[in-house]
């Protein structure tokens, strides 16, 4: 059967299980769009190509499958760069398809020609130019395989216009991936494995550092067995949140720069760190010279380049988290660890997060209240997609996730503007799930044009803008480290509720605590998207905080303010 390259692409995507493509058309990708119109693929028209990549990313993170974004050559492709880098830093399987000028024009600075494979080389797991229709099907299959195998990541496929237009024989079976053979490296030697087991069974004060790799390998069940078998307390990275239930007593919560004090203290006082699918990011370790000085370290990690990168380890188990944990599990010996767990409980009691639900209504509206009320109202079951900044940290602290893939956030790159488009992608991946955007007034203004995409696609999500009139996290740093010189952080915003109305979306504005829950409730009941502008306390800060480059145990603690601090645990 003869098909054009464009038709082969659409047919291949369909066979690869794709149902949704987030994209924006243009000259060099028009043949594909023409073929898309004849296919069963659902194309979501975005308002900016950055949005398309974030949507594909949100789709991938919510579903565990591959998200697909599409754009034309030149500016369409360059607009994808931020979204591709976001996916790269958080190991998200996204396939980006870009149109390219015809192969005979390559290198001639033709209209809307740009070397997008050159530009994206350091921010993709792999990228490739396709200039023959014959190569389209095989390349598409390879792209999906690369994106979602090993340590996942974005793959960009740049297809010249002539390759889209040319006709060729389509043969799916003959188009199997032909990737170069690789040496398998995840055969760690027995000595390394034995050393890890020895460390696990002899540790007195062990703690697990749980990362996103657990989710990516689908290791949740064996991970829980591992925790039970070894009686290990668990600290979460930001991206690991959800891979182990927050309500589980062994789950201490988030570690690192804005982790709770007891979590960071437990790490510093431990004698064994068991890192699973995490990469010792600087936001997690603080000053490496003082990081967990008394602890031996086991690193379970699929990416060999992460071993000994930031923290030298005593045993490295290279491989898929699930496989490694399954192999370790039978070797674990049950330990009571009563003293150690009691000590952590003591640390926790000493600085306990304040059940903020019990606080009296002071007339102030705090972001933490809004997020905690949202958690309560949604019973912790919603998919929450955050942006980057203070609200992101408050979400991690006050919305307790029990299910994997329910917190979607840009961790590594810290991309403002991520939340709204990523939430749209997540909704397409999980149409039956309740999706909430939690976003600051700064980040929202970066990609708010995607409100139109919501309306055009008639999808239902809820948007909570945590509006403090500042670029809050930057303001906080200026408060702490720049003597309150608020340069370029006070921020004028439109009336977000009115703006929503202009898009045809219901908008609300909330200024007092008493209105928070009823408005959340009413938004949840509504069948269409609702945007709520929460006007929160302007100069509130996220605590605790390890200053950048500081030691993990030297945190700026919550000020002794009864409004934000209580000592009672529920």
């Amino acid at each position, binding site marked *: 059967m003869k098909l054009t390259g464009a038709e082969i692409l659409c047919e291949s995507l369909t066979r690869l299980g794709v149902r949704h493509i987030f994209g924006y058309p243009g000259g060099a990708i028009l043949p594909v769009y023409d073929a898309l119109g004849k296919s069963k693929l659902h194309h979501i028209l975005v308002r900016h190509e950055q949005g398309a990549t974030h949507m594909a990313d949100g789709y991938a993170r919510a579903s565990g499958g591959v998200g697909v974004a599409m754009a034309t050559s030149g500016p369409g492709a360059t607009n994808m760069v931020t979204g591709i880098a976001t996916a790269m830093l958080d190991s998200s399987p996204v396939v980006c398809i870009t149109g390219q000028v015809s192969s005979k024009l390559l290198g001639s600075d033709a209209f809307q020609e740009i070397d997008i*494979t*050159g530009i994206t080389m*350091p921010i993709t797991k*792999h990228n490739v130019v396709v200039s023959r229709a014959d190569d389209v099907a095989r390349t598409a299959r390879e792209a999906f395989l690369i994106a979602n195998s090993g340590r996942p990541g974005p793959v960009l496929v740049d297809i010249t216009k002539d390759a889209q237009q040319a006709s060729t024989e389509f043969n799916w079976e003959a188009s199997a991936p032909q990737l170069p053979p690789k*040496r398998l490296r995840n055969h760690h030697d027995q000595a390394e494995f034995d050393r890890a087991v020895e460390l696990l069974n002899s540790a007195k004060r062990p703690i697990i550092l749980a990362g996103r790799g657990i989710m990516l390998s689908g290791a949740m069940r064996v991970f829980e067995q591992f925790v039970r078998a070894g009686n290990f307390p668990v600290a979460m990275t930001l991206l690991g949140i959800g891979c182990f239930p927050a309500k589980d007593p062994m789950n201490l919560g988030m570690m690192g720069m804005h982790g709770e004090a007891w979590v960071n203290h437990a790490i510093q006082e431990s004698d064994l760190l068991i890192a699973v699918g995490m990469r010792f990011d600087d936001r997690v370790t603080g000053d490496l010279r003082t990081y967990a000085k008394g602890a031996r370290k086991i690193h379970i990690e699929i990416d060999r*380049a992460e*071993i000994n*990168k930031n923290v030298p380890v005593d045993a490295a188990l290279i491989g898929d988290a699930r496989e490694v944990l399954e192999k370790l599990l039978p070797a674990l010996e049950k330990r009571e660890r009563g003293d150690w767990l009691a000590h952590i409980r003591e640390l926790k009691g000493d600085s306990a997060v304040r059940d903020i639900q019990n606080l009296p209504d002071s007339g102030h509206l705090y972001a933490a209240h809004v997020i905690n009320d949202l958690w309560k109202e949604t019973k912790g079951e919603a998919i929450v997609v955050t942006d980057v900044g203070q609200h992101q940290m408050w979400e991690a602290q006050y919305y307790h996730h029990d299910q994997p893939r329910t917190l979607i956030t840009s961790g590594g790159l810290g991309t403002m503007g991520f939340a709204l488009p990523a939430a749209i992608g997540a909704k397409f991946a999980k149409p039956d799930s309740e999706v909430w955007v939690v976003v600051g007034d700064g980040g929202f203004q970066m990609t708010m044009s995607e409100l139109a995409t919501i309306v055009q696609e008639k999808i239902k999500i809820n948007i909570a803008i945590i509006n403090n009139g500042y670029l809050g996290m930057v303001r906080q740093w200026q408060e702490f480290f720049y003597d309150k010189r608020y340069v370029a952080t006070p921020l004028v915003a439109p009336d977000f509720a009115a703006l929503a109305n202009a898009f045809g979306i219901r908008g609300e504005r909330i200024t007092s605590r008493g209105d928070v829950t009823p408005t959340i409730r009413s938004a949840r009941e509504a069948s269409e998207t609702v945007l709520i502008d929460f006007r929160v306390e302007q100069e509130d800060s996220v605590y605790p905080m390890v200053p950048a480059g500081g030691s993990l145990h030297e945190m700026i603690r919550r000020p002794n303010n009864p409004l934000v601090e209580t000592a009672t645990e529920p």
Partner: protein
Amino acid sequence: MKKAEASMQTLVAYVENKPGVLNRVASLARRLAINIDSLTVGPTENEEIARMTIVAHTDEKGAHRLEASLEKLVDVLLAENISERSLLERDLALIKVLADQQSRPHLMELIKVFRARVVDVAPESLILEVSGTVDKIDGLLEVLRPFGVLEMARTGRIAMTRGGDLLRPPVAAPGDADLASTGSKLK
């Protein structure tokens, strides 16, 4: 942790023999802020696979990161730091040196000592070809300098582990159990 001392690290990589691969390898070193001292690429007995020898000025940790990161590239079949292994290294240089009637006999003596070859003779100059270790070529260069070195071209180092220590490209499809054994000692 071992003390981080920068030294010359020698890596061998088997890569897909196609456009853009050299760029990926070089770009990776740049991203890791590792200075490449020399990089040579040449075909192997399999025309689809090229062999690279990368000599980089970095410490052991940097070499590990370079090796592991190289192997993450789809087009790289295998990358291995062979610095600590028993190996043979060769560099080849063409050196155009001033040679008049007076200096020529003296030059010929040196050439003999260094086992270099005269590959081009002109009235005022000679082109010498010399191969060997970097030290040997540097040594020759040192003694030639007073005569007047007009031009020089060097290939950069190629390296190979000695004897039964084989470093061959993996051939089977991913998932093949045999893959784990490539690059290990000869059975």
